[in-house]
């Protein structure tokens, strides 16, 4: 028996609050979990700044990655195995891709990627294919195996059924994060009957489909997703924290580029400031490192950097008002002028932030949408796009909801002595 099929002498289990247990029998999976690149995910929160609003949301990408693996393992071992549409040869590559799909996430991913123009999916590829412990494990399966796992995650793998388990409108990634994020934030949305969905999921030619008898469970899943986006993921206060986080990083980058002498050299950031980072620099970063720098930056001479860092660490966040870019972009330009006159740099203290979500989208022949829809498998085996059968899904299909907010330091405008602050504050709240 080769390494590919090697099993542990005894099954290992991880206790998990969402799935009760995560079961590991494959030696490859166990070895991957032990690598430093995978263990690094323990030090990166799943929900970034959301813990500043929902204090329970301290869970990590490590937990989520194990959860996605467990869901895919159950789909394959309990549902697909033995069915003619499923190729048993694809089992290990699918499990590895599920476990490793978020491997390239960095600290506070969204903000970090935005400021330094990075892409966590590219880093996932680099970690899988570079000189890493994960790559060494995958290569023990075969020389081509790391590339195969990378292709599944990059959605360029020939077997689209495998890709759809990790990335589609009803995939293991979403099923885990909705439940896990609901559990840790403590909200009552986000729950749906995953057991039922897994029982009725079937392999088809290019994707996993759901038996029509499971339609109501899928409706519940889509509605859960809708609720979670607007109640948790796009919460305006965690967006405020995210705005400040980005501005701290922007400021530090700007100061470095303009020759500012930091009290403590920002060693971990220097290669990112210079755009000369390598994989080791990236792997060395985690959220503990980032917040340690923020702590040091509260003592910097630069008042913008010190103020924003302290705001983030001590949760002195920006206030917000609703903003309509179409009707108010001229007002925004006037506000920028006033901010400058008042000695507040609008680049850092007046920020428009937008959120948008499409809960479910469908594709029908002749249309130009890009998402693969969710198909129901009817009793006669015919496939039918779900919104054609479900009034609930039809009601929200293709309906995007967008929200724009304008963030600013209300505390400063209310207590500061500059006479312009009052005028700005009144204009913001007009």
């Amino acid at each position, binding site marked *: 028996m080769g390494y590919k099929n090697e099993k542990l002498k005894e099954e290992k289990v991880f206790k998990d609050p969402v799935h009760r247990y995560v079961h590991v029998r494959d030696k490859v999976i166990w070895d991957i979990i032990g690598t430093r690149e995978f263990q690094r995910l323990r030090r990166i929160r799943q929900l970034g700044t959301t813990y500043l609003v929902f204090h329970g949301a301290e869970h990590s990408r490590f937990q989520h990655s194990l959860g996605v693996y467990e869901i895919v393992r159950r789909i394959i071992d309990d549902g697909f195995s033995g069915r003619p549409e499923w190729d048993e040869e694809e089992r290990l590559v699918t499990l590895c891709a599920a476990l490793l799909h978020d491997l390239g996430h960095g600290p506070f991913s969204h903000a970090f990627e935005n400021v330094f123009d990075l892409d966590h999916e590219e880093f996932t590829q680099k970690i899988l294919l570079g000189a890493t412990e994960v790559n060494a494990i995958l290569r023990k399966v075969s020389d081509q195996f790391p590339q195969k796992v990378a292709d599944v995650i990059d959605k*360029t793998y020939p077997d689209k059924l495998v890709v759809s388990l990790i990335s589609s409108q009803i995939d293991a990634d979403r099923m885990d994060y909705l439940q896990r994020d609901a559990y840790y934030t403590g909200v009552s949305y986000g729950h749906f009957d995953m057991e039922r969905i897994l029982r009725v999921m079937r392999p088809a030619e290019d994707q996993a489909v759901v038996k029509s008898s499971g339609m109501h469970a899928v409706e519940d899943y889509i509605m859960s997703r809708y609720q979670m986006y607007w109640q948790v993921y796009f919460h305006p206060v965690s967006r405020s924290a995210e705005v400040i986080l980005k501005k701290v990083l922007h400021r530090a980058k700007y100061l470095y580029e303009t020759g500012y002498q930091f009290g403590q050299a920002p060693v971990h950031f220097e290669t990112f400031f210079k755009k000369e980072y390598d994989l080791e620099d990236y792997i060395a970063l985690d959220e503990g490192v980032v917040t340690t720098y923020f702590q040091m930056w509260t003592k910097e001479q630069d008042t913008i950097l010190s103020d924003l860092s302290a705001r983030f660490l001590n949760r002195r966040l920006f206030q917000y008002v609703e903003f309509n870019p179409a009707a108010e972009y001229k007002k925004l*330009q006037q506000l920028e002028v006033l901010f400058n006159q008042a000695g507040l740099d609008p680049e850092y203290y007046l920020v428009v932030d937008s959120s948008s979500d499409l809960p479910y989208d469908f594709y029908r022949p*002749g*249309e*130009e949408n890009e998402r*693969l829809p969710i198909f129901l498998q009817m009793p006669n085996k015919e496939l039918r796009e779900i919104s054609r059968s479900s009034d609930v899904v039809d009601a929200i299909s293709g309906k995007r909801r967008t929200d724009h907010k304008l963030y600013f330091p209300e505390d400063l405008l209310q207590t500061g002595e500059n006479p312009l602050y009052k005028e700005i504050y009144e204009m913001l709240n007009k």
Partner: protein
Amino acid sequence: MLQEHAKIIQFISLAEQVTGRKKLQKMIFIAKKMNFPFAERFRLHMYGPYSEELTLRVEELCEMGFLEETYIHKGSYNQYQYEVSEEGVHFLETMTEKNNELQPVIEQMQSKTSRFLELVSTLLYFDHLQQEEQIEKVHIVKSKLKFTDEEMKEAFDFIHKLEGLAV
């Protein structure tokens, strides 16, 4: 502050009009690959490189009234056509500098079909690979489109021509 929105309006303004969401996606991706500074991130989807952020940006611009979206019935299929509105032209005047280097790149792309731009953009998505591997990848992810050797050659020639216009 709305600089990224302004770049999309400027692109469509230079193109005068763009017919097809797919075509717009591919044109912006290709322009980005030619080093024009678009912020939207692209991943591989059903029709090649696709950016959810760009879809969103275009929807917002339509909502804002800066872009006009027209739904056109074309027999067996439907398409969306985009043009800059009068309000969009005013907005652009307040926002951004003209990027004259973009014009010839847009002209080159405008004359091509969506299918061809899908091929070009998918090849560019894999431009970190050797040419033979790029072709192999396109055949895997676009197996149903059955691109011919002549189309591949034409696509590479087109990419070389665009690279001469890159910034």
